[in-house]
């Protein structure tokens, strides 16, 4: 399965955010999307997920047989968006009901909640009272339940505590065998720790970085240079 982005363009009035973004993302890898503030990472995610209509270019998802399939992307937002008036248990039940036709081998609500490490006492609390990390777990759970072929994660691990972040990383590593995972982050340690490949978004264009660079000792300096910043002396 390949997510093919070809010559994607998107402008907001005079500001050109994506000028000619092209890249192919493959199944089985976790991609780290790096870019400076305002580089257009969220815009790119929105164009891939269909939330925004691109001005030019195209986003295509090719199946394992390289035939085009519908681009169904799951999006995990940096700021969780969940209905506050439901409990965690109720939200998962609602999500399961709505997406029952997309979920292969559905589990029980309780099994799903346990899967992301939510304590049983928290299942029956209003989401309004959840911490940021707990809300993020619920968001991640939506992706785990519906298993869309493409998963977009906007700053996914920054709000988790050490244990939860470790659990999430393990989940993502498990997921990558059947999905295309792209995560945007500002934290290079997360990128080097979990990502198989780094993609730089700079001046509205995408550029892949070799796998060997991720584990190179001067990884940080190289990324800074690629992003147009000044290199350390």
């Amino acid at each position: 399965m390949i997510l093919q982005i070809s010559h994607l363009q998107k402008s907001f009035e005079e500001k050109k955010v994506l000028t000619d973004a092209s890249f192919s993302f493959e199944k089985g890898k976790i991609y780290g999307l790096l870019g400076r503030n305002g580089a257009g990472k969220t815009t790119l995610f929105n164009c891939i997920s269909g939330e925004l209509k691109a001005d030019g270019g195209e986003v295509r998802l090719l199946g394992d047989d390289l035939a085009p399939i519908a681009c169904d992307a799951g999006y995990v937002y940096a700021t969780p968006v969940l209905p506050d008036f439901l409990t965690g248990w109720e939200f998962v039940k609602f999500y399961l009901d709505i997406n029952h036709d997309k979920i292969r081998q559905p589990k029980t609500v309780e099994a799903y909640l346990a899967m992301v490490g939510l304590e049983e006492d928290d299942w029956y609390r209003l989401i309004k009272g959840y911490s940021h990390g707990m809300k993020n777990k619920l968001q991640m759970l939506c992706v785990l339940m519906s298993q869309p072929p493409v998963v977009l994660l906007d700053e996914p691990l920054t709000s988790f505590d050490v244990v939860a972040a470790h659990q999430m990383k393990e989940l993502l590593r498990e997921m990558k065998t059947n999905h295309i995972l792209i995560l945007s982050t500002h934290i290079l340690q997360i990128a080097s720790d979990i990502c198989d490949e780094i993609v730089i978004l700079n001046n509205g264009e995408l550029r892949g970085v070799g796998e060997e660079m991720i584990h190179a000792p001067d990884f940080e300096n190289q990324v800074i240079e690629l992003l147009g910043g000044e290199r350390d002396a």
Partner: protein
Amino acid sequence: MRNTALIGWQVQKAAAVNRFIYRLQHLPLVGKRVPSSLYRASEIKSLFQVLSLIGGIVGGLLKKVIYVAALLYFPAKLAGDILFPGETTISGSTVFLLFFCFNLLAGSFVNSTGLEVNEDKYVILNLMRADARVYYLQQMALKLGRDTLYFLPALWGGLCLFGKLPFWPIVSLLIELAAFRLIGEAAGLWLYDKKQFNIGHSGKVGLWLLMGSLPAAAGLIWLCREIPAIWTVGTHPLTACAAALVSLPALRYLLRFPRYTYVARSTVTYAVVVQGRLAVEEMGKNGSAVDEKSFTSESLRSHKFEHLKGYEYLNALFFARNKRQHRLLWRVKMILIGGFSVAACVAALFFFKDKDLSLFGIMPGLVFILYLMCSGQRVCKSLFFNCDVCLLKYGFYRQGDALLQNFRIRLRRLVWMDMLPALLLCGGIVAFVLCSGQAESLVAYIPMLVTIPLLSIFFDMYQLLLYYIFQPFLEGGGQKNLGYSLCSGLIYMAAYICLQVRTASVWFTVGVMALTLVFIPVSYVLIYRLAPRCFRLK
């Protein structure tokens, strides 16, 4: 000192102009033609600043004119008609007593400039680090100046209209207002500094003061109805001088108060201003949000609606969790209709036995009453800010079928919520007809009795339809959509015009019935066609 005033003014004006450009950009049709480069076009922004200053002055003046007309002169005229029938002029004493209760007492203590919290204040005091003492004193002086500038023509113009021309009593009144405002500011700061009590934030005290001022004014007017000298004494220069003298210690306290910085740091905080903004907007404009403490752990664990699926399940939970905020208004409606019906029946039985009490002419008026009874607008706001604002981020929620299904479920719940008051109204009409001895003409009332529930359905459907095809609410709080405002205004106008219609024609009833019946399928088609495109986050 001049610098602080200038910075404050510039920040406020710059923010006002930027807001104006932002709103222009969000106007339908023309909005897209307004470029973002306007934000850096300094000449145009200067022009906008001047326009905004003029607009602010005109708007402020208009607000005071409306306030004076609605809360001083109109009640004074009403009180005059009841207490002094036959007199064409309004009683100056009544105006004075109303002004005394609403403005000198309640207004001065509830609206404290020193303890008021807003974003401009946060920017100037926290980000620009302006001198708190200078800033607070300037703001108080500005408020006093503005009140005087706007109240003077509003009060005097009103008095001229009612045949009382003297100008100087108004000046005395404004000196008294300034004196009470100074005392109110000083009292507010003293209470906050010494007792950590913020009168402006204490909703209960503020509410009691404001609510209490109305019966207090009414009581004083009733008690003093035989004392016409109140106006003369109240607006006498000596009274004004006395008030000014009493306010001198307050002025001294304000000038010497050493802890303006403490007040600024503890009231105008990041948490209160920035983080609380959305919550305040939601609470203030959309009714209270769901509060976790209102529910017991057992009720949250109960799987009461588990048998329902998908959107039925979601909406059942939404309406159950938000029941408290909807129920209060529902009860008020039921009590008002029930009480009015009983009173009308008693009046028909005992006081108006020999009069013609036919109700056929009230149908046009009922249109307006049913419009006012409709909960649609309030429920839509609550639906958006407590539910849709989150779920619209999910693709499945924006699909045509899902929208239609949600619309259908919500319409059913809304109709049910408003149907009982409508049926009670029907019951009230039937009871009145029977009590007034028109039992034989009851059959003739059937079209009216059918139209009332139909109209209730129509208004609910109309509001829900507008919500789905315009989605007027902004993700960050507030409401902006010209189409929505126009259509809401249109239905209000239509309902209001019906109020003015004086007809007992059966055709009017038939017309309303036909409109309602046609509207139901039309709205379904519109929802299916337009909502997937229009029902989105803004």
